[in-house]
């Protein structure tokens, strides 16, 4: 194929065109495979190294490990607070997500389905929250949490993440709820259904796709966040996974096997969920950037 395209008679050869197309296709494949290797190989090396002893990592970093050697994982589970950090991350993420989705749905429903004075202003108020990097209000937040007596608690993180997640959630859900036809609502109203019933039993079940988008859009940054726990949480028992990771990365700094095991264990849950739900992940995380 390459021979044909490169040969001097190629111009007169009827297959020349096909050859060029195939060569292009091959170039595309080579570039994309190269990039995929660059993206996945480091992650693969991380998992492989987690099964190796430190000296094996140093002497043969690219070799396949003995997958039955789970000593590094056992060390991480036994000698660190990994389980505590993991539980805290689950607790904080689900707690914040529940608040975001419940409060967000309520506000979005009011803005999208009812006419009342100030509803446009309210929508703009939430929208402006999208532009504010809350990181820069960290000093007042620190003082405020201290005065409320919730500094160094998981509750402080849940409240903060709720505030961070509401603007995008109200934005996503309002846009979706506005597209739902009013006939459903009117029919139920004529039948004598109360407003809360209409919302909970008729309208909200229809917003499930938007709830999934909003949920992922917020869950991933919350699960991965490091900055706010760094400032607010000091007690080891209250630390989340990314923050806890820095603690035992310092502790095991010379035991590379344990370090890679710690990184692998931290990355595994979200990678697993991503592989199962990749389409939703991509839609959720790029929402707002894609029209």
């Amino acid at each position: 194929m390459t021979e044909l395209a490169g040969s001097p008679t190629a111009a007169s050869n009827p297959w020349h065109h096909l050859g060029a197309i195939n060569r292009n296709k091959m170039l595309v494949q080579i570039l994309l495979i190269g990039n995929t290797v660059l993206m996945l190989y480091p992650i693969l090396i991380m998992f492989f190294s987690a099964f190796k002893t430190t000296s094996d990592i140093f002497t043969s970093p690219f070799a396949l490990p003995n997958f039955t050697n789970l000593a590094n994982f056992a060390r991480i589970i036994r000698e660190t607070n990994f389980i505590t950090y993991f539980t805290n991350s689950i607790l904080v993420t689900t707690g914040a997500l529940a608040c975001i989705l419940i409060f967000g749905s309520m506000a979005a429903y009011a803005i999208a389905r009812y006419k009342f004075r100030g509803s446009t202003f309210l929508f703009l108020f939430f929208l402006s929250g999208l532009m504010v990097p809350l990181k820069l209000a960290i000093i007042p937040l620190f003082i405020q949490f201290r005065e409320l007596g919730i500094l160094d608690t998981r509750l402080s993180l849940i409240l903060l993440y709720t505030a961070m997640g509401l603007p995008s959630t109200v934005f996503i859900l309002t846009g979706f709820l506005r597209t739902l036809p009013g006939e459903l609502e009117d029919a139920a109203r004529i039948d004598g259904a109360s407003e809360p019933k209409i919302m909970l039993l008729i309208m909200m079940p229809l917003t499930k796709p938007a709830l999934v988008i909003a949920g992922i859009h917020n869950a991933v940054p919350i699960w991965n966040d490091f900055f706010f726990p760094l400032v607010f949480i000091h007690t080891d028992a209250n630390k989340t996974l990314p923050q806890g990771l820095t603690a035992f990365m310092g502790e095991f700094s010379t035991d590379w096997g344990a370090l890679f095991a710690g990184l692998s264990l931290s990355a595994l849950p979200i990678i697993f969920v991503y592989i199962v739900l990749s389409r939703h992940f991509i839609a959720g995380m790029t929402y707002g950037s894609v029209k």
Partner: protein
Amino acid sequence: MPSRHRLSHMAWILFLIAPAVVVMVSFVLIPIASALAYSLYDWNGLARGEFIWFANFQKVLFQEPFNRWTLNAFTHNVIVFCALMVVQNVTGFLLAYLIFKEPFGYRFYRTAVFLPVILSTVIVGFLWKLFLHPLFGIVNQFLNGVGLDALALPWLGDSRTALGALIFANAWHFVGFPTLIYLAGMQRIPRDLIEAARLDTSSELKVLRNVIWPLVAPATTIIFVLTFIGAFNWFELPFIMAGLDGSPFGSTDVLGLYFYRTAFGNQSAGVQDFGMGSALAVIIFSFILVAAATWTIYLRRREIEL
């Protein structure tokens, strides 16, 4: 009767909006307003002192050595931004174009390029810190293995290469984001438009430049502005990989690290200054807001022109 109904209807609406509004006012509106106010006060640790107008701003921007530190950090943010525009966004555009051709296995390539994006910066930072270790990291082991010993540098330990190594790790982490936004932008272009252009010219480069590039302008706007905001908010990656002091020798110091050090002190020297920290926060925030808004307006105009 109707007024009672109206009243209960209003109570229902109030019930719906109250929780979200209370949270937003308490943890966004008040803190942001306070940040502005705090920057105008003198602070002794956690205690607020006198009202000193713009003295904190004056210190941060014009007084030695703070002005030098601010400028040093700001310069690095500018470098990071420019480098990411090239390394991350150009690569993202090209990858998107390749995937857009829908070659065999393109769904897998799409999923793979986005995988690092979902990982925590803490994981990515530590991973590359280990990989870039001068002796035992896989980067230098690989370079030694293929005979490029001269290139096996102490990447994070040398002030000439440290920032570049950080930029590389960041690009590896996030290149999937511009890729997928560009891809979505390309997929929105009507197919027949591209087909027609291909009939007009045999040069695929011309199709790319004259048809695809102008038509993904909205994606470009979003990506450029997000890159800008990201580059000037840079904190986690340098914190993990280079430490709070932007080592070695402040060569990786950025505004985010400098702000954190000023506000909360570093572990060795426990000095913290909420006044100067707030002033820095206000400066960074205003700069990002004004620059991003101006640039968005410019890029939006460009979308129409192209």
